[in-house]
C-alpha cells in the first residue's frame, strides 16, 4: 500500500516547524507504524538527508517512549495501543496521515517529533514515592494487603508515563498522569505516611511546570495506552481535599 504522510519537521526547540509531505510506498500491512517510519528514514539516510527524529525504544508498548499524534489522536486510532504497537493494516491504501509531536507548554519540542518530557520526572521527584531507604524494610508479608487493594493499586501503577494524556487534553493537563501515581500510593498501606504531603507537592509541581487543569472530558482516558480511567483524577481530588482539611 501507499500512504501520503504529512510529518512535522522542526530543526530545534526555537525554530519554527512545518508539516512536510512524504510518500510512503510499498508499505506492508504487517509493519508497525514506527517500522514504516524506519523505512522512510532509511531512504532519507541513504540520500544523505537528515532523518526524521522520533522517540521509541522498547517497541512493545511498555517503555512509554514513543509519542506521536497521528491524524489528530495521540498514539493513533487504536484503543489501548502505543504507536509502536499500531500496525499499518489499520490504514487504507492512499490515505493521508498527519504526524505531529505531543504539544504542550510543559513538553517543548526538541526536534521534529521529539519532545522534552522531563516535567513528568519532576512531578514524580516532587513526591511520587515512598520515602524509605534501602535496608530497613520489614518482611514483605509483615503488612497484609487485600487482593482487591493490590489489584486497584496495580491498575493505577500500569501508567507508562508516555504523556499521551497531556497530548490529548485540550488543556494539556497532567492530571491523569499524576493522579495515577497518587492513587496507587494512597490505596496501599505503604503510601499512607506521606499521603497528604505527596498529593500537595505533586500538584504544585505540575502547576509550576505549566500543565493545564482538568475539564473532566476524559480524552486522556480514551487515548491512554494502558486505559487508566479518570476515576484516578476523582481520587486525586478527594486526596487533595483530605490534605487541605489536614492543614497541609
Amino acid at each position: 500500500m501507499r500512504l501520503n504522510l504529512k510529518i512535522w519537521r522542526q530543526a530545534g526547540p526555537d525554530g519554527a516547524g512545518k508539516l512536510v509531505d512524504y510518500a510512503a510506498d510499498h508499505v506492508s500491512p504487517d509493519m508497525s507504524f514506527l517500522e514504516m517510519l524506519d523505512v522512510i528514514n532509511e531512504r532519507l539516510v541513504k540520500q544523505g538527508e537528515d532523518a526524521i527524529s522520533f522517540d521509541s525504544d522498547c517497541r512493545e508498548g511498555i517503555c512509554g517512549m514513543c509519542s506521536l499524534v497521528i491524524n489528530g489522536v495521540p498514539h493513533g486510532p487504536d484503543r489501548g495501543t502505543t504507536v509502536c504497537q499500531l500496525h499499518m493494516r489499520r490504514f487504507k491504501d492512499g490515505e493521508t496521515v498527519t504526524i505531529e509531536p505531543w504539544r504542550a507548554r510543559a513538553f517543548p519540542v526538541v526536534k521534529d517529533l521529539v519532545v522534552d518530557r522531563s516535567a513528568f520526572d519532576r512531578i514524580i521527584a516532587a513526591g511520587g514515592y515512598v520515602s524509605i531507604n534501602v535496608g530497613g524494610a520489614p518482611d514483605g508479608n509483615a503488612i497484609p494487603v487485600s487482593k482487591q487493594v493490590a489489584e486497584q493499586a496495580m491498575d493505577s501503577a500500569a501508567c507508562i508515563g508516555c504523556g499521551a494524556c497531556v497530548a490529548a487534553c485540550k488543556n494539556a493537563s497532567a492530571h491523569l498522569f499524576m493522579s495515577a501515581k497518587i492513587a496507587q500510593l494512597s490505596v496501599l498501606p505503604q503510601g499512607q505516611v506521606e499521603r497528604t504531603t505527596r498529593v500537595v507537592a505533586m500538584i504544585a509541581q505540575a502547576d509550576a511546570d505549566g500543565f493545564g487543569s482538568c475539564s473532566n472530558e476524559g480524552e486522556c482516558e480514551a487515548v491512554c495506552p494502558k486505559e487508566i480511567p479518570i476515576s484516578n483524577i476523582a481520587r486525586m481530588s478527594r486526596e487533595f481535599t483530605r490534605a487541605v482539611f489536614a492543614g497541609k
Partner: protein
Amino acid sequence: MSSSKLDAKVPGGPIADKWDRHKFEMKLVNPANKRKYTVIVVGTGLAGGSAAASLGELGYNVLNFCIQDSPRRAHSIAAQGGINAAKNYQNDGDSVYRLFYDTVKGGDYRSREANVYRLAQLSVNIIDQCVAQGVPFAREYGGLLDNRSFGGAQVSRTFYARGQTGQQLLLGAYQSLMRQVHQGAVRMFARREMLDLVIVDGKARGIIVRNLITGAIERYAADAVILATGGYGTVYYLSTNAVNSNVTAAWRAHKRGALFANPCYTQIHPTCIPVSGDHQSKLTLMSESLRNDGRVWVPKKQGDKRPPEQIPEEDRDYYLERKYPSFGNLVPRDVASRNAKQACDDGRGVGDSGLAVYLDFKDAIARVGPETIKAKYGNLFQMYAKITDDDPYAVPMRIYPAIHYTMGGLWVDYNLMSNVPGLHVLGEANFSDHGANRLGASALMQGLCDGYFVIPYTIGHYLASTALPKVTTDHDAFGEAADNVQQRINQLLAVKGSRGIREIHRELGRIMWDDVGMARSAQSLTRALARIPALRDEFWHDVSVPGSPDNLNQSLEYAGRVADYLEFAELLALDALQRSESCGGHFREESQTPDGEALRDDDNFSYVAAWEFQGVGRAPALHKEALVFDEVHPTQRSYK
C-alpha cells in the same frame, strides 16, 4: 590456569558465611566523608537505578546518566514474568541453598559459586524493599504475597505484578531515584550517551558523554564509575531488546582495558512472534507460560504448505513430546529453541517465511474451554492477534526463537569491580551470576541485588581503601578521551557513503544469527570471523550518516552503536570458536550427545573466558578464571 589479571577476590570460609564475613571485613566510609566522594552511575535500569538511589541515600554525591529521555524508560521495564526470591512463603521446600543450587545448575556450571550464593541470599531482601516502596505485587486473598512457579522450577518462588513485573520494579527503583534527585543527592543526566571511560593513574576516574540534545561532548569526573548499561542482544539486529539497547558503553570500557567475559553466552527465548518481513525492527516475546497449555508441532512432510487446520493429526509432528516424553513441551528454553530451528532447517517450518513452528491451543481449549484459556492467557493472545492479525483461539500461533538476554559481559570480581580499579559493572552488563544460561525470573533479581545490596557495600570498601587524589576534567586523560570521542564522530560523519546504517546492522544481524546463533560450529564461526571484518570495512567506507554533530542526530547515535557492534561481534564469534564445548545457551554442533543434546567438557572448559582488547582487528588476549565447584557438582542435564 587463572591469569594474574583475574583475582576474583572471593572471601574465604563456608559459602553461607562468605558475604557476612566479607561485609565485616570491608572498609567503611565515614558518614561525614561520603559526600566528598563522587560516583558516576551509567544506566538507570534495575541495576543502575537501584545503585544510584542507594548510593544517594548513603550520602554519596551521585551523577546518573541514561540515553533515554527519562530514567524510567530503561529496558528492564519490559520484563514480564517475575522475580525469584528464596522466601519459601509457599512452604514448598524452597531455601537460599535451593535457589543457589538451581541457579548454578541452570547456568550449566559456568558461573561463580560465591556470587550466585550471595544472589540467592540477598533475594529475600529485594522483595521486602520493593514491597516497602509500594510495588503492587500480586496478592492472595488473605493479603499475603502470591507466588508462581516459573521456568521449570520445582518450587513456587516467583513474585510478580501481573505481566509487568519489570515495569513495577523499575518504577520502584525510579521513584527512589527521583527522591534522591529531589534531595539533591543524585544529579540526573538524561539523554546522555557514554562514549568513553577516562582512566587516570590506572583507575577509572570519569566518563565522556555526548549530550544527545545539543551534541556537546561533556566530561564528568568521579572517584568511581559504575556501568549498568545492559546487554548486547541487539548485535543480532533482531532481538527482544529495545531498539536503543547497545554495547557501546561496555565496549568502550573494554577498549580502555576492561576484560570482556564469556561474550558467547547468549540466551534465546523459544516463544517469540516470528519475523514477518525485512522491515521488522524487533521481536516480541510472549511469556513462556504459554507452553504450559500449548502443543508445539510442525508438519511431518517437508514443504507442507496446507493451512494448519487442514493438516490431520497423523501428518503432524509434535516433536517435543516425541523426543522428550517426560518434559514434553516444557523443556528448557535452549532445548525448545534448538529443536524449533532444527525443524525449520529440515524444511518443515511454517508460515510464509518457513521460519516458525506452531503452538497449538486447540486441545487445551477443547479440554478446559475457551474461557479458561482466555483467563490465563488473554493478554498474550490479544497481543499476538494485534501483531499478526491472526486469531490464536481459532488457528495455532506461530512462534520462533529470538535473542533475549546475554549472560556474558564485562568481567567483575566478587565486589563487582572489573579488572580496571574503580570501574564497577552491574546487572546484565556484567558476566557474573548466570553462567552459560539464565533461569527465568532471575534477571530482575540480579539487577536489584547488585544495585540495592551489593554495590553500596563494595564501593565503600573501594573508596575507603584506595588513594584517590583529586582529579578534575581538565586532566590530560579527559582531553585525550574527549578528542578520541570527537574524532570517531567526525569519522562517522565523514564517510558520506551510500549504504544505510540499518541496512548494515541488519546484515550483521543475519551473519550473527546464521553463523553465531542457536547452533554454532567451527565452520560457521570461522565464516563469521571472515564476514564480520569485511562488513566492518564496508561500513567505514560506504555508510551514510547524515545530519550534523551539534544537535539531536539519531542517525549519528545509531551509527556509533553499529560501529561498536561491528567490532564486538568479532569478539563474540571468537569466544564461541574457542569454546568448543556446548554449555547452556552456547551450542556447538561438534559437542553433543548421541541424542543431540548439549555436551559440556568440564575438563577443558570449566573456566571464565575473559578477553583483553589488543586493537581493532587484532586478536584479543584470553585470560582464564578457573571455576571451582565446592558445593554443586556438575552433572549432565537431561530432560528425557
